[in-house]
């Protein structure tokens, strides 16, 4: 590329020409080589081939190890087809899960499941726990308020809702785990309540306020 002519700046020109001491001090500048420029040697063809090969190779690598673009896959050897064939759905133990969830319930019903006399009814041996699935799940979903008779003793407390509208808003699975747990712990020997059963009751139940004991007894 040719050096473009630059219009001399008259001010600089004067300063540079007239002041001899400046000329002397500028020895450093005068000896330095001109400002760098670019050469225009064309790119070697081999390099173009190399760049193309790199793009091709790296794309192949990325596509091969993309892990289905899943946010849950951390292993580059993941292959969706073999994964589907070999993966077994891990069996969840509802009692173990329920035991963990019961920590919330234990605040009132106590870790022993014995409750507090006069206020929070016991779960151990309670007819409300080991009895009707329909009643127990409804209590979990909407809560229970007012007087209640358990094993002949009177209680008067408030149980919050764990279903829609409550502060907890537990899923069908969570509710099924915890009710299964209380039905099988402390010597209780009632059957498991599945998440499907909870779902079924939740769907036919449009209520959003806590139950009273009388209302529950009216169901079935």
């Amino acid at each position, binding site marked *: 590329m040719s050096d473009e002519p630059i219009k001399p700046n008259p001010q600089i020109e004067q300063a540079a020409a007239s002041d001899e001491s400046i000329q002397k001090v500028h*020895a450093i500048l005068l000896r330095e080589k001109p400002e*760098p*420029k670019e050469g225009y040697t064309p790119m070697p063809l081999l390099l173009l081939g190399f760049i193309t090969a790199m793009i091709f190779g790296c794309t192949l690598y990325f596509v091969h190890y993309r892990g289905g673009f899943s946010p849950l896959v951390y292993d580059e050897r993941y292959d969706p087809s073999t994964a589907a064939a070999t993966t077994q759905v891990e069996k969840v133990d509802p009692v173990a899960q329920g035991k963990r969830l019961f920590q919330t319930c234990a605040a009132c019903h106590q870790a022993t499941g014995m409750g507090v006399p006069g206020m929070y009814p016991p779960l151990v041996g309670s007819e409300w726990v080991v009895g009707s699935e329909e009643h127990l799940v409804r209590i979990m979903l909407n809560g229970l308020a007012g007087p209640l008779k358990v094993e002949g003793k009177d209680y008067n407390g408030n149980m919050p809702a764990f279903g829609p509208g409550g502060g907890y808003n537990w899923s069908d699975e969570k509710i099924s785990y915890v009710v299964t747990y209380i039905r099988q712990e402390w010597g209780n020997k009632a059957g498991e309540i599945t998440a499907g059963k909870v779902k079924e009751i939740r769907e036919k139940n449009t209520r959003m306020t806590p139950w009273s004991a009388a209302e529950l007894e009216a169901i079935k």
Partner: protein
Amino acid sequence: MASVPTLVSSLNPATTSDDVKRAELSEIDASTKWPALFLLASAVGWLLIGTLFALISSFKMHSPDFLGNYEWLTFGRVRTAHLNAVTYGWSVNASFAVAFWLMARLSRSVLRHAGLLIVAAVFWNIGVTVGIFGILAGDSTSIEWLEMPVYATPLLFLAYALVGAWAVITFRFGKSPHIYVSQWYILAALFWFPWLYSVAEIMIIFAPAGGTVQALVNWWFAHNVLGLWFTPIGLAAIYYFLPKVLGKPIHSYYLSVIGFWSLAIFYNWAGVHHLIGGPVPVWVQSAGIAASFMMIIPVIVTAINHHMTMVGSFGALKYSPTLRFIVFGAVSYTLTSLQGSSMAIRSWAEVTHFTHYTVAHAHWGMYAFFTMVMFGSIYYIMPRLLLKEWPSAKLISVHFWATAVGITLYVADLSIGGVIQGLLLNTPVLAHKFGLQQGTDPVPFLDTVKATIPYLKWRSYAGILITIGHVAFAVNFVWMVARSVQTTKTEPTLFRSPPEMEVTAQ
């Protein structure tokens, strides 16, 4: 009979366009004098402080009792103080000075309102001082590369914004119709750094993102601050000083273009390779690995461009300090970048990650490449700011050999030590096969630590050598600033006198 223009120019020395350009350059250099001098002096100060912290933490690695009774000098604090002092103190100060000195020259524009730039530089240095004081006092955020406590960082960002804006303004006032390759890199870096720093500060410190996203942002920042701030500034300096000292054009404009844009496109992705094997979605890791490999393109292209410019002029390395440091840095850039790409290979990362190998790699990049290039630049810039020559060629020679040998020893030593450490930790079977360790499988953790001690000691020896180089540099620097102007001496300070001035104009 000479033609009229030739006759006129032979009578008046200032009529040729070259002389006008030189007069213009002297004006530009003079306008950058005080801010550049302040930044460079601060940089040298931080270099010494950072080196001291480095030595203390290096000694502690093999002699844990060393200064063990001082809370402020415990390993976790002093190593972090080292990193921040050399990164934000030395490297950023030096790169500011080099960046806007180059920017002013290449844009052919004087620096406007230099006083405000000094204010910004003062703010930056106050910020770094407060930050490092905070780290030593125990207020580190414990996020790698962002350890400075929150009361220091907004000041840094403000100071940076001022300095960055100044370089952009200088560019806007530029008279040069052509934008030289160094300017592309500086301009891009000036926009990249505030983007990286602000996003990282917000997403990690001020309004933290949850879970692994935070780790991703952390490594995105930490890797990009090297690749999108220090690397472009270093490359800008190489692209300027290599042809400048040699007096010939850069080999190929086309290679410069490919080198610049491939760096801009691919580097940003590569940081994830620090999280290989971690709980990060595998496609993100794979994208990072692919991008790390694509980084071979800008590295090879830039290496060819620099090498072909250099070919035929290797003799000049005997004379010019600037050229010697710059070429050492350019070669290191190529090697360390290729090493970096190889470290993204999954099976190799399994061995080298979380070992001293990574530390060796980081120093190869930040020291053997970036810092050496900055040394070379400073050797060229200082005589033009002060209109004085470097007082001692001998000290420059000590500086070069001590740092060059020191960092080579450092990198080789820790790389070997790191691989041994990685093999013992991860694949003891392989380590047994290589005869690295007798006995049990797996190797007890304490044995893997003991195996690294000789390498850590050699790291300290290399560090002492580098320190000697830094002291020689600092003495020469202070001596140069302090001595009176000698108008009689107009020859550059070179390692030895060249047979003809044609070869090198330092």
